[in-house]
């Protein structure tokens, strides 16, 4: 069974891994790998994150780059479906894996030790929608992770940077890709360790990440990134969740599964 899975993943890697330029192996070089469609917004978000990691890294002697071999990377950034994410976590049990696109609740309730989700789960979006309906019962707004018109909390600055480098509007999965790289690079800047166990512990207990959404973000034990969400109606942001007047706006755990099931 295990052998079969490994074969499957290897084939997958060959078919869909983005091949980065070969780079020399320096001590200050930090390698990341991306698995998924290299034309996707998630990938553009990862690239934006790498650009910004290098903007910080030049002051610290750190250089970030992509590698085509996940085994030589510090973390794997995946734009794949739930089944493939779950296989990936078993093939690379000692790597941090970031899920950038899959909203499936099962991936959160399963509580993989090494999988982190920067994209919000379906349950988080459902809860945001329910909170909003309590406030505005007739609203037709839907829930988004990010929006290209988002300006508050310096979101506008991130949208400007993304559009300047890609000529595209920043979407939900682009934000998830950017956030995953940015929070990893910010953690590597602050800590001497680079190993998976310490990184995972740090992400779930000490991380205070500025996702440019106005609040300090960190991970639940389920591996899900706690985060505010946006209510968008007709192309305009009409609200934010947790929804003011319905729940405490700082209670990010009012959205989705807050803890691993016992």
């Amino acid at each position, binding site marked *: 069974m295990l052998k079969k899975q490994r074969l499957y993943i290897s084939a997958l890697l060959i078919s869909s891994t983005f091949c980065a330029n070969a780079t020399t192996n320096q001590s200050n070089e930090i390698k990341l790998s991306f698995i998924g469609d290299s034309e996707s917004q998630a990938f553009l978000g990862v690239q934006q994150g790498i650009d*910004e990691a290098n903007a*910080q890294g030049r*002051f610290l002697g750190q250089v970030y780059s992509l590698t085509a071999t996940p085994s030589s990377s510090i973390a794997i950034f995946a734009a794949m479906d739930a089944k493939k994410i779950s296989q990936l976590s078993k093939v690379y049990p000692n790597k941090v894996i970031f899920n950038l696109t899959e909203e499936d609740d099962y991936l959160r309730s399963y509580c993989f030790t090494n999988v982190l989700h920067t994209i919000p789960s379906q349950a988080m979006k459902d809860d945001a929608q329910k909170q909003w309906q309590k406030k505005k019962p007739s609203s037709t707004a839907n829930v988004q992770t990010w929006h290209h018109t988002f300006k508050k909390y310096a979101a506008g*600055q991130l949208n400007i*940077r993304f559009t300047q480098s890609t000529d595209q509007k920043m979407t939900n999965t682009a934000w998830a890709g950017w956030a995953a790289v940015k929070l990893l690079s910010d953690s590597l800047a602050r800590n001497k360790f680079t190993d998976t166990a310490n990184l995972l512990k740090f992400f779930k207990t000490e991380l*205070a990440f*500025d996702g440019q959404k106005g*609040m*300090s973000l960190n991970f639940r034990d389920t591996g899900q990134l706690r985060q505010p969400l946006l209510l968008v109606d007709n192309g305009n942001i009409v609200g934010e969740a947790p929804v003011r007047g319905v729940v405490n706006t*700082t209670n990010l755990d009012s959205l989705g599964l807050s803890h691993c099931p016992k």
Partner: protein
Amino acid sequence: MKLTSTAVLLAALFTQSVLAQSTGRVFVTNERSNTVSVLNGTTHQVEATISIGKRPRGIGISPDGSEVYVAISQENKIAVFDPKSLKILRKFDAGDDPEAFAVHPNGNVYISNEDSAKATVINPKNGDVVAEISVGLEPEGVAISPDGTRVIITSESTNMLHVIAVPEHKIVSNILVGARPRAATFTNDGKFSYATAEIGGEVIKVDMVTGKIVQHISLGDDKAKPKDVLLSRDGKHLYVAGGRLNQVIILDSDSLALIQGIPVGKRVWGLAMSKDGERLYSSNGVSSDVSIINTITNTVIATTKVGKFPWGIVIDD
């Protein structure tokens, strides 16, 4: 160099006469009204409102008190007006999206250019660019050491304090701090600096000789989004604008222990202190007012309505 020290000495000698000529007015930029509110320093009432330009934010005064500078972000310029006549004298190019700036004792202005990850040094007399320094992403806060030899630029999305040597205009250290550093200030002797980290909810004290953080505290309230920071004139107390906490927070400058919070208007961001250190002003963005605090009793003695989203404050005293 010698010339500069002579100039500083002369300025010091004439401080008395400069003070005598000062208007005592308090100037407040209103980000969403495109105006500057002019407050009488004694009555705390609005005496006049100046139409200044699009999205005014940072504000500063020349060392001799003869000119007030306002960063008008959406025009990519700095506007200059006369604090006595309130006439706009000129506008000069200030790079892309100028936000915060500080005025050096030699008269030059140090500006953070948010969208282009750099700081620009400009001579406001002729608008000449003296230097450009590449820094981290979303540069914001600018602080200048009292002796003028060091400038700190905070980069909000790179989470650093960039320390720049003057007159070389080279970065001498990069200090990693909490998430979204917004503002910084130096001690009178220049040996330490303080900075706020808005998203981290932290206040940090840095040893400027070693470049190391020597003290930091979390404000411990999710609503505390610290922004502006300044020291009392005796250096004992640190004042922090608490953002959505709607308080000016007073900390012990040595231990960073909380002394007390003073309730002010909604979403407090900007702070300014009178020369005698007895009055502290806060700009409260959401309630569109300015709170005037007596620093001896630590109470709000007046609240004055200004324009929409007051941002920066400077006092001509």
